[in-house]
């Protein structure tokens, strides 16, 4: 019974923890402009993150070593240093977007302007990173984040024309009002939102934090393979809500307040309250994960003592890194920059940086020195190669498309 509860808890937190500000914003923007004609990208992204996360979880569980230790060991200080610089900066950008998301969600709850919420959000974030146990932190934000299921409920309550939605999703075409370049730009953004690289640092380091061993592999694989696809369903539900309410009205989503309106339309004040709680939990959870990831990547590269299972004083430089990153994210947001804009950039840059983490993980997952008998199987490797092509293509195409489309405008 206890074991079953453990399995259920793992899956539920994986679903609740899947969505972050990037998924929320990108899916709603895409839904309002392209309907469900980009839903296939979410499917591609979810399979990708399943593959990727289960590989990095396996590497961490079998070797006991987290991602960036191995990247440094395999690539040497120069290539790994360049990789660290890029990954760290993009992670910081994502952290900034998440903290901004918390502030925007709290604005929806209170109509107090976000600039006043930013210091509060940053302090709360640090307090949790400083004092809370890893498993408590993961379980609470994951379970509360599950309330975002309300997006899926809202789709049913809105009573859409199902055949039209299915048509958009199954035979995707570029809407007349949008160009092909913009369509593909948003395809890459959506892919980056689903496959955010910080998930991988976090997942592999989390496996070390929770002291996973080979025995826990089955559970971790189940969490990923069941939890993430359900998370993907929620992503599509967010896009569907926007597609039902905003696409016919010619409304383009550009703020978090718009994202919750279809839910209010469908379910009234109660649903609205639930969705706001869900957004706060999802962004707060992702902000915790990105804060920790900033500490994990740097500490693992430098060989410092790290981990939330240690007292802060026993992982001093790790904690200092996180404090500095949270302060930087807060300071950037205090300049009144629009968090939604930061989010849009962060998902595209995530797509650009994907090969940097994906390739080393793939190499190590095939390295018998680390993995022994648990190296990748043939099927995994075949799928991994297909994704390598997709990821590299998306990464290379992202910047030219960003310039050509004026970042999707």
């Amino acid at each position, binding site marked *: 019974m206890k074991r079953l509860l453990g399995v259920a808890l793992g899956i539920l937190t994986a679903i609740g923890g899947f969505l972050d500000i990037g998924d929320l914003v990108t899916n709603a923007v895409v839904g309002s402009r392209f309907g469900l004609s980009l839903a296939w990208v979410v499917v591609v992204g979810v399979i990708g993150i399943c593959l990727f996360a289960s590989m990095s979880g396996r590497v961490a569980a079998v070797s006991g070593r987290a991602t960036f230790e191995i990247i440094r060991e395999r690539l040497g200080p120069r290539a790994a240093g360049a990789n660290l610089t890029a990954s760290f900066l993009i992670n910081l950008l994502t952290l900034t977007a998440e903290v901004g998301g918390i502030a925007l969600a709290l604005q929806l709850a209170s*109509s107090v302007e976000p600039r006043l919420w930013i210091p509060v959000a940053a302090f709360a974030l640090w307090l949790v990173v400083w004092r809370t146990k890893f498993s408590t932190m993961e379980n609470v934000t994951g379970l509360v984040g599950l309330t975002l299921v309300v997006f899926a409920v809202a789709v049913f309550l809105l009573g859409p024309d199902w055949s039209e939605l299915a048509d958009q999703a199954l035979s995707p075409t570029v809407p007349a009002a949008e160009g092909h370049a913009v369509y593909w730009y948003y395809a890459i953004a959506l892919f980056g939102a689903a496959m955010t690289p910080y998930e991988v640092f976090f997942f592999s380091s989390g496996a070390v934090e929770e002291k996973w061993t080979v025995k826990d592999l089955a559970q971790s694989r189940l969490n990923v393979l069941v939890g993430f696809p359900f998370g993907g369903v929620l992503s599509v539900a967010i896009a569907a809500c926007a597609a039902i309410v905003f696409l016919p*009205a*010619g*409304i383009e989503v550009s703020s978090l307040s718009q994202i919750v*309106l279809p839910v*209010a339309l469908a379910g009234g*004040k109660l649903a609205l309250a639930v969705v706001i709680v869900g957004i706060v939990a999802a962004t707060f959870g992702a902000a915790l994960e990105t804060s920790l990831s900033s500490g994990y990547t740097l500490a693992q590269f430098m060989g410092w003592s790290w981990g939330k299972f240690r007292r802060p004083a026993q992982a001093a430089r790790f904690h200092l890194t996180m404090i500095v990153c949270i302060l930087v994210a807060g300071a950037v947001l205090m300049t009144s920059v629009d968090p939604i804009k930061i989010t849009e950039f962060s998902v595209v840059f995530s797509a650009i940086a994907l090969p940097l983490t994906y390739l080393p993980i793939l190499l190590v997952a095939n390295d018998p020195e680390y993995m022994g008998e648990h190296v990748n199987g043939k099927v995994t490797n075949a799928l991994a190669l297909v994704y390598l092509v997709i990821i590299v293509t998306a990464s290379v195409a992202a910047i030219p498309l960003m310039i050509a489309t004026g970042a999707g405008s």
Partner: protein
Amino acid sequence: MQVVRALLGLTALAVVAGCAVGSPATTVDEARALTAPLEQSSSAVGTATLATELLGDDRTTAAVTDTALLDQVHVLEEAADAVATFVPADATGAGWQADALTAVRDAQLAVADARGWANGAGSDEASVVAALDASAETLEDLTATLDEVTGQ
């Protein structure tokens, strides 16, 4: 080295070409440049209408509607800025610009009024929604006129 120079040259060309988009040459380009901020304004007014009606039906909280309307004020500000900084080439363009600017300004007024109502100041829901609807219609008509020129 030659490859590098060629690449640099191409980049420079791309940058110059990119800048050139800012100053439209033909009537069609002018109409297209004004359509974008008008569509943006229509989207803002549509959102404002939805947020206002939801509050009237007691389906949202004042805080959410207030935030949604505030966000749309910012969107309209951006659109007004785009229209106001547009440089017309001839009298036709100047006329469109004036119409567009009036339409966007009216939209700003309607949304600001709605926000006032949401926060409990003056007027009633019906007149607020009527003003938003009227603004939406003006914007739509103007967009339709411009669309005829661009042939979309």
